[in-house]
């Protein structure tokens, strides 16, 4: 069986294992209301994982997603506060445009200024967070967490009559688009090629830098989109909105099977990862454990999954190699 299918089965098994454990120990866990709740919890992170998956498959990393999402949200909050007349669709477009601009900046610093992704996006994370503070709404000089009262905007946090939240639908649509892009288009093939073997991608005439820029822009786009739903849900733009969100996103992507070495994983895997992390959080709260446990467990999960992936890849490779060797030894006897 192929390595990627095996990996998919493993992450699905992990997900179902988690659902089974919580489902059996808590009667409330599998109630429809709770299912819609954790689907909603998975969605904002999930939207971000679509873009970040692309970045990680190109063997990059994006640490700026949490801060960029906050910046987009803060700018929308500004409009809602100072220019209440601006139509909601325009607001959404602004958010997405700012996200794309942020992604362009990341792509520029990485591909043109040639900074390593890690340092580049760590730096832009600071810049985006700083800008978020810069645009924070103040009253007599002090930052105020202005509550959003615009009902039309708050409707983004709403749900369908039967209980499914809008944001979950957007998440699902993004996963479908992302997966299509990755598996059915040239851009997708080139994304894998760039991350898997940059040198031979270059020799095959693949515009690897352009692919990396595209991945960052997509990641920025996802930030702009996620910001809309995050702001509507929290109801106020704080300067520390989305802090640590990039951590959740990376954890989800890693659980889903994207490797930091690049060239592996896909959007559907990351979706499974996002669900896994949301269910884990949901379950932890059900056990009345504090959020400190949640953060620690997330850290441990990242270590375990990365460790697992490297052991598992080593195992897979040694299996092919021993098959190779068997072929050789067979001949050695004939000689």
């Amino acid at each position: 069986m192929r390595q990627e299918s095996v990996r998919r089965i493993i992450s699905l098994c992990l997900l179902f294992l988690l659902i089974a454990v919580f489902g059996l120990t808590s009667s409330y866990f599998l109630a429809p209301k709770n299912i819609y709740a954790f689907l909603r919890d998975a969605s904002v992170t999930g939207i971000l994982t679509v873009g970040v998956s692309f970045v990680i498959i190109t063997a990059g990393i994006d640490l700026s997603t949490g801060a960029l999402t906050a910046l987009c949200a803060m700018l929308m909050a500004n409009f809602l506060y100072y220019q209440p007349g601006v139509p909601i669709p325009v607001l959404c477009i602004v958010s997405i445009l700012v996200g794309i601009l942020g992604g362009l900046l990341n792509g520029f610093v990485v591909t043109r200024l040639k900074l390593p992704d890690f340092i580049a996006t760590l730096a832009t994370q600071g810049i985006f967070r700083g800008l978020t503070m810069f645009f924070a709404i103040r009253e007599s000089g002090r930052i105020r967490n202005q509550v959003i009262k615009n009902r039309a905007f708050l409707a983004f946090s709403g749900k369908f009559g039967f209980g499914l939240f809008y944001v979950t639908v957007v998440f699902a649509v993004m996963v479908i688009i992302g997966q299509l892009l990755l598996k059915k288009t040239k851009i997708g093939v080139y994304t894998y090629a760039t991350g898997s073997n940059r040198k031979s991608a270059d020799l095959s005439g693949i515009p690897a830098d352009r692919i990396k820029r595209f991945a960052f822009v997509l990641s920025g786009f996802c930030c702009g989109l996620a910001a809309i739903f995050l702001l509507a849900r929290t109801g106020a733009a704080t300067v520390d909105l989305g802090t640590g969100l990039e951590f959740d996103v990376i954890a989800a992507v890693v659980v889903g099977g994207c490797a930091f070495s690049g060239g592996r994983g896909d959007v559907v895997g990351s979706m499974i990862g996002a669900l896994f992390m949301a269910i884990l959080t949901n379950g932890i709260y059900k056990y009345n454990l504090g959020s400190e446990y949640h953060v620690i467990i997330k850290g441990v999960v990242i270590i375990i999954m990365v460790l697992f992936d490297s052991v598992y890849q080593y195992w897979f490779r040694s299996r092919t190699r021993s098959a190779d060797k068997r072929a050789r030894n067979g001949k050695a006897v004939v000689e």
Partner: protein
Amino acid sequence: MNGQVLLRAENIHKSFSGVQVLKGVNLEIRAGEVHALMGENGAGKSTLIKIIMGVYPKDSGDIWVQGEKVEINSRQDAQRLGLAVIYQELSLIPTLTVMQNILLGQETQKAGLLDRRAMMRRVQELMDRFDLHLDPNEVVENLSIAQQQTVEILKSLTVDAPLIIMDEPTASLSASESERLFDIIDRLRSRGVGILYITHRLEEVRLLADRLTVLRDGENVAVVEKKDYDPQKIIRMMIGKEITTAADRVEMKRPSGPVGLSVRNLCRKGVFRDISFDAHHGEILGIGGLVGSGRTEVLRAIFGADRYDSGEITFDGKKIASTVSGNILKGFGLIPEDRRAQGFIPLQSIRKNVALTNYDLLSGALGLIRSGQESAMCDRAIRDLDIRPNLPSMPVINLSGGNQQKVVVGKWMARDLKVLLVDEPTAGIDVGVKEAIYQILESLAASGVIVIVVSSDLQELLRVSTRILVMREGRIFKEFCEGMITQEDILTAASGIDSSMEVSDE
């Protein structure tokens, strides 16, 4: 289509920093022929290939592809003209499928989406046409090396009139995989593909080549047709002497010192087997053979850098350690072939590099480095080995190749060295400095150190060794321990030919 000239290079000149590497080389490859390119290391083969592939610009000369004069300035240019190289190390995308790799950069699209069916059809046609069958949906990293090579070949066949350059393609293949490759080459030839085959292996040339171009010192020696093929003559052409003069003969000696290092039946599956030899105190034991014959791997196994499956290595009667650090403590040193990646720490100073393996000798109270001794060690190495410039704080990356090598030697000489394993002692080093390196090795041997030298440079091997083993396909094929020998003798043995005047041990 067969017989049409695919590529003609005429009067190609190239020099690097004043040294003429190619002095008016000609090369002509026709459709449907396997054209072998042979020559000693440094004859200019790889420079010529790199010029054809647009990696280096040429100084002068012309290249025609299918009758049209072309300028090739990049790999992309070469690819467009249907020129492809299959390197020893493969350049595929491991996580993509066979089909995606073959058509990488040439995907078919329909309405912005990949047209998988059309692509599959194209790959299937290609596979049928050349009779090379693989599962197009298999992920490349799950394939064997030989299958991956087939993918590379298919990738280079997507153009109209392909010319495939194969650079030592069998170096990493087993005998059966090589035979399968020869079979593929045959099929390609019969379908009009031109193949330029670079190799050191005479038997492959005899088996495959329709014509053969021999290069020596950047010049054409001859173009040989298949019917005129004679291995002894070709060896002579490569070495460049019709009759070897007395000065080219070197005397081999039976070692007189006591046995120090003893290797018995060393085996590593698929890499080397039945390696047994003794190395004596005070001798320089040369190991010759073709690239891929297992020489480097044996050295690394002795040093403890690689594992081996069975066999025994003893030093002065005691079994040696199986780890690098254990062997270093016992007085072993390794000078690797790839200096830059394995020999030294590029950005660190001469002083730190010389001290690198010797901090056990330099640590003082509380585990701090005794920097006075560290400096003294470096000064000694600079003085003894004549490292230039004599600035201990100079990063080693800024030194010339020869001086870098001296630093690598220096870090071992600072210890109580017993065994020095040297892989290609002067690769990439100026001619003038080579002699200095040889003298260092000789003075080490004179002081009782066992020096084992692996080299592909025959002249060097003869110059420095007191005794020579020749390896072939993972085994010791021949030992030269007495009498006068020449480069020809070594090359003949490395090619697996039993010269009539010698008695083979096989």
